[in-house]
């Protein structure tokens, strides 16, 4: 159907009045800058296209950086028992036992397997720092050929411990059948701990070793400072008590203060002595076993493999955090989206009502 009025509508479309044309030309005389600001450029779709790859790249960069830069440091701090070759070629990489100014933190080493040859030098075993008090703990797992050898090894370890001036804390011997396990916990003067580890490692095939060192020098120094302070207080209080002009109440107060200070001094001396005793002996746990599985040394990882593994673990951690954030934020985002959609629909309906199109 060709409606005549359609043609009329088209034909008689009114042009804009001249005065409007002048108004608009005046407006258009100020040509806006062609280049948009970053806010105008950063539309939501563009933002997603830019931010998502950037975030992904940042995650990968952090993971790779962690893998590349952190792994060598960890490697030095936590060396596996070195092979003979490594012990020979890199003796300088034997780590310092701990940060001498860090008190209370354990430095750990070991955990890996080693061949019997590796025990000759135990070059990778952290040594106690000279001149500092440290809490030194070592755990060795040694495989022996049979139950008879295990018994001999136990006796040898106990004898050696006594020879060095140490003592046995606990011993367990468990031989239910052909195979057996034994655990010996000994305390050995720290100056002999390296020799003890070497001696114990030579009792069989070293399957694993774990060394933890905690510096306690800071705590000892702290006790010493406190003791000096308490001693000063005691001396001062005693001097004050010599004053004959003291009232009964003042004397009672000073005596109470003196008693408190003396008690505090006794406590501090005891704690310091206990700590010093702890630090003067190393705790060595020797696990003996006849089981072959215990002697299976884990496959050594190369630097590249370790770097990749560390990078992957950081990436997994990042993803876990991202997922966590997503789970936490998702309900809020959903509510916000629903509110936005609802507001949009409501506005559109209001517009339709306004124009009478419903």
């Amino acid at each position, binding site marked *: 159907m060709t409606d005549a009025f359609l043609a009329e509508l088209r034909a*008689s479309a*009114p*042009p804009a*009045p001249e005065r409007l044309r002048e*108004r608009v030309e005046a407006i258009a005389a100020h040509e806006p800058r062609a280049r948009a600001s970053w806010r105008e450029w950063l539309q939501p779709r563009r933002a997603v296209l830019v931010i998502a790859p950037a975030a992904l790249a940042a995650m990968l960069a952090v993971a790779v950086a962690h893998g590349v830069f952190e792994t060598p440091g960890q490697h030095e701090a936590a060396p596996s028992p070195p092979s003979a070759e490594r012990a020979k070629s890199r003796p300088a990489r034997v780590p310092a036992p701990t940060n001498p100014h860090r008190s209370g933190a354990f430095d750990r080493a070991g955990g890996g397997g080693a061949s019997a040859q590796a025990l000759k030098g135990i070059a990778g075993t952290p040594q106690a720092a000279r001149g500092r008090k440290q809490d030194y703990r070592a755990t060795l797992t040694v495989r022996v050929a049979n139950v008879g050898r295990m018994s001999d090894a136990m006796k040898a370890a106990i004898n050696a411990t006594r020879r060095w001036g140490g003592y046995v804390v606990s011993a367990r011997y468990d031989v239910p059948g052909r195979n057996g396990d034994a655990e010996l916990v000994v305390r050995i003067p720290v100056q002999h701990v390296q020799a003890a580890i070497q001696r114990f490692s030579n009792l069989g095939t070293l399957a694993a070793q774990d060394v933890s060192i905690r510096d306690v020098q800071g705590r000892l120094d702290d006790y010493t400072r406190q003791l000096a302070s308490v001693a000063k207080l005691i001396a001062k209080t005693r001097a004050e008590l010599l004053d004959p002009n003291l009232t009964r109440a003042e004397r009672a107060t000073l005596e109470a203060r003196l008693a408190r200070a003396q008690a505090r001094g006794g406590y501090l001396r005891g704690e310091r002595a206990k700590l010093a005793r702890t630090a003067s002996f190393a705790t060595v746990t020797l696990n003996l076993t006849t089981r072959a599985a215990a002697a299976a040394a884990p496959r050594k990882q190369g630097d590249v493999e370790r770097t990749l593994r560390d990078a992957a673990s950081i990436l997994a951690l990042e993803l876990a955090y991202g997922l966590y954030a997503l789970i936490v934020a998702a309900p809020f985002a959903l509510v916000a989206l629903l509110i936005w959609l609802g507001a949009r629909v409501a506005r559109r309906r209001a517009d339709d009502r306004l124009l009478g*199109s419903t």
Partner: protein
Amino acid sequence: MTNRRPAAYTGCVSAVELPARHPNATAARPTFAAAARAHLDDVYRYLLYLTKDGTLAEDLTADTFERALRAWPRFDPRRGSARTWLCQLARTSALDHFRAEQRRHRREERYARDEPVAAEHHAGGLSPELEAALARLSPAEREVIALRVVLDLDGPSAARVLGIRESACSTRLSRALDHLRREMGTDD
């Protein structure tokens, strides 16, 4: 009168503009002054049909171009033509005006739709019958006629201006034309 749903409009509307995102659509960006010169009449006509008031249409047209000047850096020719974009801005200006009017009329307990039709001859050389019939249409009906018939916008562009789907736009145009025919007394 039957209450049947009108069929979608399939009348003659020449495709002056390529639809948005058409692969052959040109992405050339005109200057603002050129776009204003080229589409001033279209914006004015659209607003004139929507408001039924020549003076108001002039004011809203000027307001539209002021908005357009501020928003021009955001205009992306790949997403639609300048004419479509300007008509969208014009519609926003008109709706803002209607809302403000509605609030004012609410305060006075009256609605803009209930106001008597302005007697002004708004559309130039239209016959009195056609002009009266147009005045009896709702603003939504007049605006779809303005976009599709007077401005000759294609379906996708008109739907984009109205913020609805293309099929809904066709249906709205069909209803509007049926209504106009009835008002003109030419309903078959």
